[in-house]
């Protein structure tokens, strides 16, 4: 059996007060783990690369289909 580590992060008292108020929302935002600038830059690069490849593929498909449709329908 594993006992709780006394230095374990605890959420006790973390969500007291009114359910919805500006102060409560700001308090919750203070506990959010935000990504680092480096991680955001890396993920942004990955996302843009992925979108670039997907755009190229989709637009390539569209051009081929358009040419084929025009050839058939005149």
């Amino acid at each position, binding site marked *: 059996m*594993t006992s709780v580590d006394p230095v374990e992060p605890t959420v006790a008292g973390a969500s007291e007060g009114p359910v919805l108020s500006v102060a409560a929302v700001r308090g919750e935002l203070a506990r959010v783990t935000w990504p680092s600038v480096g991680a955001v830059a890396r993920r942004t690069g990955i*996302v843009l690369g992925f979108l670039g490849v997907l755009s190229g593929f989709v637009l390539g498909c*569209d051009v081929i289909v358009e040419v084929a449709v025009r050839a058939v329908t005149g």
Partner: protein
Amino acid sequence: MSLALAAWSRSGIARRLLITLGLLAAFRVGAGIPAPGVDAGALRACLEAVQGGGAVGVANLLSGGALLQLAVFALGVMPYITASIAVQMLGSTVGPVARLRQAGPEGQARLSQYTRFAAAALSGVQAAALAATVTYRPGTLYPGCGPVVTDPGVPTLAVLALTLVAGSLLCVFLGELITAHGVGNGLSLLILASVVAALPGQVHQMASQVPTAGWGLAGLGLLLLVAAVVFVEQAAYRVPVVYATHTPPTGAAGAPVYLPLRLNQAGIVPAIIASAVLSLPVALAGEAGEGLLGQAASWLVDTTGPVYLVAYAVVVAGFCFFQLASAYDPDRVADQLRHAGAFIPGLTPGDPTSDFLDRVTTRLTAAGAVYLVWVALLPALLLSATVGVGKVPLGGTTVLICVAVALATTDQLTSGVARPRFPTLKETR
């Protein structure tokens, strides 16, 4: 490099990627082939005169231009998405549906079946309306245009409507195949592919509105917006969870495990729904004339006006909380933690844990709603303030869809490569 390639081929990701690309190509073929009965030549001439604003513009964007091309996949997956939201809504308000939701995999399978039936019915209504419009009143969709079907009449209308229904259901099937055998969420990927297909037209339209001197600024703003969306989509409240009785699912025994609660709990659906909902009065304005509805629609046409901004914020916030209420059940999560022998440090299992999760997710959703409103409206407001462009076709909603789906898909791709693949029983023989 060779190690990465070896891991790539071992993980089976290459096969899943090829399946995904093949199904996406099939989807684009269906989005490019005109439905039977459509006069392709006449339609091509009409499309050049269409601006694509309002409800039609939103629907056309989400179908990748297939809607106004009257393609076989003109309706896309949107009827299914709408049906899913309706079933979700019923699941949180109507007793029998709510009981099905809680009945485990069997109930979920039954609900999926009902969602498909609802999608078929909804696409039937939409297809009939679209077919009737293009058959008898083509000028509504293509201003100043004559007939776009070869033989206007009931048989053409029926064939066109049936084709559109079948096309929409086939889109859902393709999406489900991608989810099961490909990479990422199939339906999301199909919507992304549609949005991406409409991008060149949108960029061209934007470039013609923004002065040349503002292109650099607009590009930089777009890049910063993408980075901001990545920043917020990656943010999460990591609630510590301790497993007291056995080894946790991840990490070493006794090590803290976290229950991540995303800042944007509702995802991108509220922004898509809000755009569609607010464009409806504009579409109806043409029928309503100068009455009260016509006046309200004229206020909603100005996407940088105070009425539109307030209405958009209210609809997004409403859908964010609805999405949370229908998709996230803190009581069930608390129960799952208790059954797994886990607890949140400082809280006793059961009601206190459930109350805590409820409060945290409600507050995060409030912050997430503000984020969604800002991202969706900021491009229009900034371009309106800086270069005087009031109507921005490349809206924040498009950026949200692109970035959120790309993040989820690339996450699955990278985790698939990192995960070791063990040989199957057949391979070991």
